[in-house]
């Protein structure tokens, strides 16, 4: 145990898994020793990575078996190539067969353009596998707070998950800022305006409009606690959720990964992703507030009471999953969003319309204060995702 706070944003895929699951419980499938590298990067004279930028396997979380995947955002921007995608597809198919919940740590710019066609189909296969697992009652929890964000097809996969847990750094979008600017002009989107990027695509905005369910600080232990709570819910999201105490459960996590610490965005022709934002963002905003508990309750009433979540797995093993009712509710939720906010020019207009008195203060708000604010004003996606 340690009280040292570990940044989720800075951590690598393997460090994230180590921070998430019970110590020593992780068993990797088709690991790096298998050398199942991309068969396509060599065409571009680009170096492969032994795990193709994703780590998948089984583990326990508080003793409960789960399946877990983590993308490595530093390799090719975490982009989906053939092998990378196939590993996640296989994991999700096993989840359906086993009835076992899945946690996915996203960190991706989208499709890996050097193998774009393979990556595109892989994303379609993954989305199908997520939906089929959810229909069977499996929970698929997405964690988003990495360097590469969650862009392109990664954003679409995230949109298929049961629950999304984000930090401020967790940008979710289809088209990345640079790609919008390149295609539509700087008047449409100035990708160098970082504040604009964050308030349009960042974790706070996504939480406020219901695009993400749980907001946490940039802290591996906070992600772990939120994932644990999400998994304790029934497969269909509950309309009321409780907050949960934060337990600083950093164990053997060790920073072998980034010696240089610098955000080594791939600026050479290794630049990975089609639709993603390939710029590396410097973390300043969501900063360090001492690792306080910032997981937020999504019940409309907004009390973060620190009560532990009551697991609602019923004894019969019956776990209602994604169905027509869920999607009908999501349809209504997304229609309502356009009706309410469709004319908004900027995120701050939406936040104001939600009832937030001083929307301009939101970007600089520390995570705890934001969590309290969001719990009161945000659009909830409960039962509608």
């Amino acid at each position, binding site marked *: 145990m340690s009280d040292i706070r570990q940044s989720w944003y800075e951590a*690598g895929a393997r460090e994230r898994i180590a921070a998430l699951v019970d110590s020593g419980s992780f068993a990797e499938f088709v690991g*790096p020793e298998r050398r199942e590298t991309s068969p396509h990067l060599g065409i571009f*004279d680009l170096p*492969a990575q032994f*795990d193709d930028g994703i780590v998948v396997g089984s583990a326990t979380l508080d003793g409960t078996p789960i399946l877990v995947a983590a993308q490595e955002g530093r*390799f090719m921007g975490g982009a989906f190539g053939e092998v990378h995608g196939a590993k996640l597809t296989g994991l999700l198919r096993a989840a359906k067969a086993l009835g076992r919940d899945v946690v996915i740590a996203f960190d991706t710019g989208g499709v890996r353009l050097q193998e774009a066609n393979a990556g595109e189909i892989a994303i379609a296969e993954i989305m199908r596998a997520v939906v089929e697992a959810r229909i069977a009652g499996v929970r698929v929890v997405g964690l988003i707070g990495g360097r590469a964000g969650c862009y392109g097809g990664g954003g679409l996969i995230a949109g298929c998950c049961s629950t999304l847990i984000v930090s401020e750094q967790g940008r979710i979008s289809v088209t990345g800022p640079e790609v919008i600017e390149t295609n539509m002009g700087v008047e449409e989107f100035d990708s160098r305006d970082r504040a604009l990027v964050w308030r349009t695509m960042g974790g706070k905005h996504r939480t406020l409009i219901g695009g993400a369910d749980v907001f946490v600080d940039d802290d591996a232990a906070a992600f772990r606690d939120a994932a644990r709570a999400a998994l304790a819910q029934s497969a269909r999201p509950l309309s009321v959720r409780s907050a949960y105490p934060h337990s600083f459960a950093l164990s053997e996590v060790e920073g072998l*990964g980034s010696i240089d610490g610098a955000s080594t965005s791939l600026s*050479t022709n290794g630049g990975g992703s089609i639709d993603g934002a390939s710029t590396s963002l410097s973390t300043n905003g969501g900063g360090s507030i001492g690792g306080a508990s910032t997981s937020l309750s999504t019940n409309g009433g907004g009390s973060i009471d620190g009560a532990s979540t009551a697991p609602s797995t019923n004894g019969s093993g019956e776990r209602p999953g994604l169905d027509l009712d869920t999607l009908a509710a999501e349809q209504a939720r997304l229609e309502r969003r356009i009706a309410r906010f469709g004319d908004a020019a900027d995120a701050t207009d939406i936040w104001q319309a939600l009832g937030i008195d001083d929307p301009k203060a939101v970007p600089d708000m520390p995570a705890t204060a934001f969590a309290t604010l969001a719990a009161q004003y945000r659009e909830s996606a409960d039962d509608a995702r």
Partner: protein
Amino acid sequence: MEILHFDIAAPTPAGGTRAMALVGVVASGNLEVLVERSDTPDRCAIEISTAAHGFRDLWDAVVADFVGRRAAGGLRIAINDGGARPDTVSLRLAQGVRMIEEPEA
């Protein structure tokens, strides 16, 4: 890609019982090092795959220095290189050996 092979005498065998260790990632200026056991305890085999062509002499020096200073006997090391500087390579190799010698969880 340029593939380089080294197989050199390494008098000090690596300790520990872990079967493998992986450190680093393939990114600009970075590299990944996969360390595994071989059945020749007095040799260290290193295979490097790099997009930066023409640096064999530099790799030769880094590898010789590594094997001279670390307990690298009986190791089989595979490297995917994203154009790392020699000091980064040395650091990763040292991390890799340290990790494979760690007690098993």
